[in-house]
């Protein structure tokens, strides 16, 4: 996949190479630098959108959480390219025309076709980049951030016409124009198909509803959802759906929740902790509420397992997909071990269910309780002591990012290969 992306970038650079006879003088250097960064930005923004197109092969093969991380990396890169593109073009034009950059900016925006739209697009992109930066992101509600993020589509639409109307590589090169347009059309088509049409079709086919609600712990609720033809979803233990509860206030937000029990032909179960505003409101969801589900997504499944022995590590509400794997992963007694980290005994989820599974299947189940920062029970030393043959295990890991990062470092110190560590994170 990375290779494909690099190949595309090379094609974009070739486009520039072919359309530029030579570069001469400071003005040309700056302007052509601006053209290259502009072309690359136009390309990477397409790739960044593609990563979010919910293409099933990517979602299962790469994993949604990794796609989201790549999306974030690509997004930062794209915004940087756009900023460079704007600065270099203005500067380069100003040098060539012997004007000052301010005057040049005014004339660029006012007298070139579609440049006003493109300026708005660049502003939007930078704005989205700023609100997505880690510091700002922490202060924003998930929903606010999510909807601000949708402005990216507007930015892409606004910027598209200036690419063809003023792009030196496209004005007199119809094949290049056609190729560039089809790149965008294909990505747009994939987005519409997988993010709009597929969910609508699935809603009509499955007609899901909430059939029961059950409080598991303070602030944590299990939601039972029933529907038609659920077996056609082919959901694997460890996967998640993006759920949209059709209440008046929250029909527009789709949030990812893992299945917290192995999927049944008639019933799916998710378990939700009050994290964002949307999940907090879930307690107000009633029996009978209609539900739309997109998915299943995620590669955190038995398909990643290569070893006979498996170590499952969960923290907090990260137990949901881990519990499903604990219930369903094939294994002889003693093959499968679960370490469940909680901050207090009162916040343990599925305690009796986990004990019952461990008893019935002969799995090992350890509860690690203690407040955060009270000495890491998942340190390398303690892990090695608890599980002497740690290196013979596949490790599945789900929990808050700080915990999974620290635990992965511990596992690496114990000599576990990074390819045998599988992580699901909820940084979506």
């Amino acid at each position, binding site marked *: 996949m990375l290779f494909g992306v690099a190949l595309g970038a090379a094609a974009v650079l070739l486009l520039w190479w072919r359309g530029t006879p030579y570069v001469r003088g400071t003005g040309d250097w700056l302007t052509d630098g601006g053209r290259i960064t502009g072309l690359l930005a136009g390309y990477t923004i397409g790739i960044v959108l593609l990563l979010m197109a919910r293409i099933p092969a990517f979602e299962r093969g790469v994993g949604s959480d990794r796609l989201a991380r790549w999306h974030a990396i690509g997004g930062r890169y794209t915004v940087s390219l756009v900023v460079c593109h704007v600065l270099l073009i203005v500067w380069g*034009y100003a040098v060539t025309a012997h004007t000052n950059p301010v005057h040049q900016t005014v004339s660029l925006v006012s*007298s070139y076709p579609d440049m006003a739209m493109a300026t708005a697009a660049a502003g939007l992109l930078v704005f989205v980049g700023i609100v997505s930066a880690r510091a700002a992101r922490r202060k924003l509600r998930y929903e606010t951030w999510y909807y601000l993020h949708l402005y990216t589509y507007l930015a892409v639409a606004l910027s598209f016409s200036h690419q063809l109307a003023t792009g030196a590589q496209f004005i007199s090169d119809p094949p290049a124009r056609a190729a560039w347009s089809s790149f965008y059309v294909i990505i747009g088509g994939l987005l519409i198909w997988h993010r709009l049409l597929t969910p609508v079709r699935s809603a009509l086919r499955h007609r899901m509803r909430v059939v029961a609600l059950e409080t598991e712990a303070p602030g944590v609720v299990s939601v039972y959802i029933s529907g038609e033809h659920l077996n056609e979803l082919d959901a694997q233990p460890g996967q998640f759906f993006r759920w949209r509860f059709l209440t008046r206030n929250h029909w527009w937000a789709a949030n990812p929740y893992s299945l917290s029990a192995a999927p049944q032909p008639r019933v799916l179960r998710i378990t939700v902790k009050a994290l964002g505003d949307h999940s907090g409101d879930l307690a107000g969801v009633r029996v009978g509420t209609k539900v739309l589900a997109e998915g299943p997504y995620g590669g955190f499944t038995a398909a990643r397992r290569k070893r006979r022995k498996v170590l499952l590590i969960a923290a907090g509400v990260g137990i949901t997909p881990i519990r499903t794997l604990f219930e369903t992963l094939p294994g002889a007694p003693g093959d499968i071990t679960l370490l469940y980290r909680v901050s207090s005994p009162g916040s343990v989820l599925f305690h009796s269910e986990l004990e019952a599974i461990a008893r019935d299947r002969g799995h090992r189940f350890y509860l690690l309780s203690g407040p955060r920062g009270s000495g890491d029970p998942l340190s390398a030393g303690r892990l090695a002591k608890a599980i002497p043959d740690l290196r013979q295990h596949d490790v599945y890991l789900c929990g808050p990012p700080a915990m999974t990062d620290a635990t992965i470092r511990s596992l690496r110190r114990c000599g576990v290969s990074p390819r045998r560590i599988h992580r699901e994170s909820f940084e979506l």
Partner: protein
Amino acid sequence: MKRPVLATLGTITCVVLLLGFKSAPTRAARPAFVSPLSSSEPPAVDSAATSPNIASSAPPDSAAASTPSADPATQAAAQTPTPSTSRAPTPTKTPSRSAAPPPKAVPATFLGASVQTRYGPVQIKITYAGGRVTGVVAVQLPSGRSRDAEINSYAVPILESETLAAQSANINAVSGATYTSDGYVRSLQSALDAIPH
């Protein structure tokens, strides 16, 4: 922290290398583009005299025509709907350049097609003598907007000198005058195509 630094450095290196390669070898490569024009066969000029493509004959006044002072004249020409070639700007001027074409070469002018751009038509005329393009002048340029004169005044001299240096239509678009440059190059190409070989 490592990844952003690597990405930044990688991108900058890549862009600088591309620009560097583009600026260095193309000058060496330029004679290859010149060859179709610089084949200084005398019959080329002779047969040109009978060609219907010929617009007019004029003394080799390329230098005068391509000075910025000629621009108002070309602007004026641009406003006439179909500029007749006899009304070409600055028809007679004494040759002011010592880099004159080889002796005995009969100069001929070729009018390029009038190319419609987003902001108006662009049409150029070349003077050809001794197997070389010795002069080039824009007879039509966009003039509808107040900014056009400004663009033309800096872009056209660059395009003219680039044409004379490249001896082909393989010239760079001028920053800030992308459309005019594109029309210029296409009109220039059609004029060059009109030269009989």
